[in-house]
Every structure is written in structure tokens, then in C-alpha cells.
């Protein structure tokens, strides 16, 4: 295909991505080295606010930004180098904690705590999603034809359901004396509070994620199982391979590209874990990298946002995901060179 034709085909898609993804990304990158500040002045202000019966007036010194003739705030933009990154990473305190082997001190720095949880969340759920997905696919493939339809339907439910709703419904089952907490309490004969400590919350978040994503892995694997070469399977049987060996040496290699595909998608999605933090209100105990960025960006009541630190933390998040994906990308490169022409 000539480059011109190629460009014509790709252009609409590319333009949209450049406009709505690349452009904001560039601005974030630049923003991570900048600091925007309003020019402030101190003024004496008398403020009268209502009590229930009368009004109380107080005179205080407050800081107000300067406004130019056209009614906009006067702001200054400074290039601050790595300051935003330093403020996010807090390398001094982190290094002090590392060199004195003080894990809990390191975990008091938001970024490192978020990184710890994000990595753990990603790496723990990855094998679970692939394992559970594969198990369901094998079992469904094994089931009688008549029940496959309904079973596939039920299995897909956790995947299609709106994530916000899914997270909330799981939360209701456990929060306070939620139905499953009450059940567990009766079974274990002790009082449980699943939202009161970090590890139970983390466990629930991982459970939710596996519940939500395993069906996706399942349906991909199930489709893959439909194309397993029956001849190879039969010759394996003739060679006397038992069930496990057939799984190990015929089916899994056949599914290998799919496992890579799911790993890729799951790594990217799990690494930006966010809905779980909001859905389970786990900020007190665990936070994730994307939540950290989001939190910097949320304005407080007075409208302050930490744009610089948010940009820095999102760039750091990007770097992390690229590092995680490198092994998988190298494989794609080989496929690309070998596969398409």
C-alpha cells in the first residue's frame, strides 16, 4: 500500500487521537515543569455573615488576586524544572526511609504508597484474571451444548455491567452489616468490619476487579478454544497424552497469543485503577496512582488545584505503564515484522 493511500485511510482516526489525546498530553507534559500562580495582594476586608438572629461582621486581612482591566486574574507562569516532580516523589524523605529500612515511613509518602498498591493490585489480579478466565472457558467448553448459551450469558454479566454500578453493588454487600458481611459473621461467629482495615479493603477491591474482568478473559479464551486444531488434539491422544498434558502442550500454546493480548489489556486497565478507590471509599487506607492525580486536580472549596503536581504525577504514571509494557511490546514488534505483508 502506498504511503499516500495509507495516510488517507488513517487520517480521520489519527486526527481525532491527536486532537483529543495527544494535545492534552503535550500540555500536561509542559505543565509538569511549570507553576501557575495568581498575583496576590493582601487587603483588609469587612465581611458580614448571618447568624440566626443577627449579623456578625468581622474585619480581617485576606489575600485576593489582582484583576486586570478585562476582568481576568493576573497570573504568572514560571518554569520550575523538576520541582513538581520533587514535591510528588519527596525523594529525600523516601531515601531516608529506604536507607533506614523503615517501610512504614516510606508508606507515609502518598506517591510511594500509591505506587505500592497500584503495582500490587496489577500484579496480583493479572494471573487471577487469566487463570479464572481460562478455567471458566475450559469448563464451559466442556459443558453440555444445551446449557452453554445461558451459562455464557450469565458469565458475561459482570463484564457488561456498568463499572460504577458493579462496584457499588459489591460495596452494598459488604459495607456495615451488609448482607455478605452478616453472612460471614454468622459463619465465622465473630464481629467483622470489612471497611475498617486496609487488607480487607484491598482484598475486596481485587475480588471486584477479578469478578469484573475475568468474563472478558473468558469470552476471548472461549472463542480461542473453538479454533483448537482437533487433529493435533487427536494425535496427542494417540500419543498417550493425558488430559493435563494435552492442556499443557496443545491448548495453552494455542491460546498463548490470547494470553498476551489479555495480559496487555489487563495491565493497562489495572494499572490505572481508579473506580475501586472511589467506589469503596478506600482513600484512608489505600490509594492508587490515578487517584493521586485525580486528587491533585480536584479543586478544594476555595478553588485551588495543584495542576503542576497533578501533571507530574500523571507523567510518572505514564512512565510506569511504559516500563510494564516493554516486554509485551517487544513481542508485538517481532509479530509485526514477521506477520504482515
Amino acid at each position, binding site marked *: *500500500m502506498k*504511503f499516500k*493511500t*495509507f495516510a*488517507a*485511510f488513517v487520517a*480521520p*482516526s489519527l486526527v*481525532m*487521537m491527536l486532537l*483529543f*489525546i495527544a*494535545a*492534552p*498530553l503535550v500540555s500536561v507534559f509542559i505543565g509538569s515543569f511549570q507553576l501557575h500562580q495568581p498575583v496576590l495582594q493582601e487587603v483588609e476586608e469587612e465581611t458580614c455573615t448571618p447568624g440566626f438572629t443577627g449579623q456578625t461582621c468581622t474585619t480581617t486581612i485576606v489575600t485576593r488576586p489582582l484583576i486586570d482591566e478585562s476582568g481576568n486574574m493576573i497570573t504568572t507562569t514560571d518554569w520550575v524544572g523538576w520541582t513538581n516532580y520533587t514535591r510528588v516523589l519527596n525523594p529525600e524523605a523516601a531515601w531516608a526511609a529506604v536507607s533506614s529500612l523503615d517501610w512504614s515511613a516510606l508508606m507515609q509518602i502518598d506517591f510511594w504508597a500509591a505506587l505500592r498498591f497500584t503495582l500490587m493490585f496489577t500484579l496480583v489480579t493479572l494471573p487471577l484474571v487469566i487463570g479464572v478466565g481460562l*478455567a471458566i472457558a475450559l*469448563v*464451559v467448553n*466442556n*459443558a453440555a451444548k444445551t446449557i452453554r*448459551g445461558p451459562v*455464557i*450469558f450469565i*458469565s*458475561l*454479566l*459482570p463484564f*457488561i*455491567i*456498568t*463499572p*460504577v*454500578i458493579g462496584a*457499588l*453493588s459489591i460495596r*452494598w454487600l459488604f459495607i456495615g*452489616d451488609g*448482607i455478605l458481611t*452478616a*453472612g460471614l459473621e454468622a459463619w465465622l461467629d465473630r464481629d467483622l468490619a470489612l471497611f475498617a482495615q486496609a487488607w480487607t479493603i484491598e482484598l475486596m477491591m481485587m475480588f471486584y476487579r477479578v*469478578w469484573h474482568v475475568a*468474563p472478558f478473559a473468558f469470552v*476471548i479464551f*472461549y*472463542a480461542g478454544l*473453538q*479454533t483448537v486444531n482437533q487433529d493435533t488434539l487427536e494425535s496427542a*491422544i494417540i500419543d498417550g497424552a493425558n488430559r493435563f498434558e494435552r492442556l499443557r502442550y496443545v491448548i495453552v500454546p494455542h491460546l498463548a497469543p490470547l494470553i498476551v493480548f489479555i495480559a496487555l489489556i489487563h495491565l*493497562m486497565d489495572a494499572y*490505572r485503577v481508579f*473506580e475501586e478507590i472511589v467506589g469503596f471509599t478506600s482513600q484512608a487506607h489505600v490509594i492508587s496512582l*490515578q487517584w493521586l492525580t485525580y486528587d491533585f*486536580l480536584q479543586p478544594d472549596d476555595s478553588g485551588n488545584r495543584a495542576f503542576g503536581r*497533578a501533571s507530574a504525577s500523571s507523567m510518572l504514571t*505514564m512512565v510506569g505503564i*511504559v516500563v510494564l*509494557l516493554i516486554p509485551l511490546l517487544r513481542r*508485538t514488534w517481532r509479530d*509485526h515484522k514477521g506477520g*504482515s505483508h
Partner: protein
Amino acid sequence: MSTPRAMRQPLALRLTSAGFLAVWCLIASFPIVWIAVMSVKSPVDAFASNPLDVIFGPATRAAGNGLSLLDIVVGLVVLVFAVRLALNWLPRMVSHYAPGGQMLFGWIVAATGYAVAFVIAYFVILPALLGLLNPVLGPLGQPIIGLTTEHYRAVWVDNAFYRNFINSMVVTAGVVTISLTVGTLAGFALARSGSTVAFWLLIVALGFRALPHSVLVAGYLPFFVNSAEILRPWLGEAAPTLYGQPWAVIAVLVSINQPFTIWMLRSFFQNIPNELDEAARVDGCTHFQAFRLVIMPVMWPGVITTGLFSFLLAYNDFLVTSLLLDQSNQTMVPAIAGYFNRETTTTDQVEAVAAAVSITAPLFLLVMIFQRQIVSGLTAGAVKG
């Protein structure tokens, strides 16, 4: 197909696998079934700590809303019948009346019609009929399970939730259509080009997919709100305020969705043999003609599957729609989240649960209908890439 002896399974394995399947189905469906049960109870019952209270709803029953044994039996029978109809009769009718290329359109019409007919039959005709029968039947007609549809009525009628539904449909339809149009072109070109540019494009797209969305959305907001002022030098007085415009949100969601779409479609096209369009080119077609005449007729399984994923993304999106749309254009998911996050009462929360169940219903229907296409579409293409 007869199973070779060696493929036959020992009893233990069969039992284990059946057991595993049963447990999985229970885990997969329980939370959803549970919120459905909560949604038809009065607030006192819905958040009761005793599970039996939630299921049987004494407070709801005391308020005079309940189901009798007869209601349950008749309801279940009609439900099973309806599902069978949807799985067997409906596909036949569609393939009968809408051959070939109109398949997709036929399905949309059929699914919508069926959904409307079902809602009318199940929630209007059936209750009226049973309302007449129950008093006559004595003990069989006494309510045994508390059930009330008042939250659904509050959501759909009083809160005009159908407006959010329509908004969701507009956004979703826009995203799916544009996403697929733009994506198939790009996917085709990427599949047919072995150049390094193509590879790097794919890698960059992958990088884009990995991006945390909160970063992007925060970048959009100031621009969307001030766009009238920013664009005025070029567009004059016609410069639009992008904030609150459904089409602007559609553009954003299409872009966010592009990386996944082009990757997926590229794998499909890689599995359509090169010879097909090359033959057409030899006959004098341009690339675009070859695409339109030769490739388009055979790409539907892949496009439907990719379309479903686009549908899910657009329909389920929360972050983008909640921040960039205002109340009059609000889609369903942020509207529901709104019920929870504002200073709520318990009634609000049960109404939110009812709304949550409502928005899951179209997804149910979608999967029920397209289930076979998902699996066959994946089998045909994406899973080999």
C-alpha cells in the same frame, strides 16, 4: 459428533467442573440479582440487615404491596416463555425478514420492538390481569413477598429518567457509528501496511490507551467551558460553547476509544486474506473501491464485535460524561451517580438502585441477542491476532 473414547471424561472431573460452573454462575449473578431484589422493596426493607427481610420485605408487604403465589408462578412462566421467544423465535424472524446486508438494521428494529412489547405485556397487561384474579383465589392470592414498583415509577415517570435514557442512546449511537467508520478505515490500512510508520502508530495508540483518563478530562474542562471565547477569532459569533454539547462528548469518547478499536479491527482484517482485495486491485479498483466492494461484505462479524465493545465503553462511561455534560444533556450513569453523591435520603438511594437496575436491562438484551455474534466474531478474527 461422537466423542472419542479418550475424550470422555471421568465422573469426578465432570462433577468438579459442573460444581465450579455452578459456583461461578452464582458469584457472577449474585450481586446483580441482589440489587434487583433491593430495588423493589421499601427503603426500610432494602437496607435491612437481615437478608430474609430484604427478600421477603415485611415492611413493603405491610404497606400493601406484594406478590402472591399465583403472581410468582405466572410471572416466572411468562418470563421463561419470553426468554425462549427471544432466543429462538426472534432470530428466525429477523433472518427471514431482513436478509443479508440489512441484518444489523433488522436486529435493531426487532430488539426495540421486542423490548417495548415485553415491557407492556409484563408490566402493564400482566399486573392488571393478576389484579383481577388474585382476590378471587383466596389463600393463593394472598401476598407472600413484598414487592413494590414505586421506585421504578419515581425514577422513570417523576424524575423523567427517560430523558437520560434518550441522551445515553444519542451518545452511544454516535460513538458506535463514528468509531466504527473511522476505525475500520484505519484498521484496514494498518493491517495491509507493513511499514514502520504503521507499527509506531499502533504503539503510540497503545500508549494512548494506557493513559489515565482523569488527566485528559481535566485538560478538556477549561477549554470546553471557554470554547466560545477561544474560538471567536476564527468562527466569529458562531463559535459554540462545547461544554454540555453531546456531539463534543461523542468526539471525545470516539477518540478515547480509537486505540482499542483500531487494534481490534486490524486483527480482523489481518485474517481476511490479502488475495481478496489484491484481486480486486488487479481488476482496476482503487484501494478504496476494493475496500468498499470486496472487504466490506465480509467484515461484519468483526465489526459487530468491535461495535459491542464501543457500545459498552460509551454506554458505561462516567468520567467524561459527568464532567462535560450539563443536566439537560445528562446521560444515565452520571445521573445515577448523582443520586448517591448528593446529600441523599434512603429513598433516593433505593431509587438509584432502581435506576441502576433499569440501565442494566438494555445491556441484558444486547448480550442476549448478540451473544453468538460475540463468540463467532472473536473466533473469526481478533483472537488469532
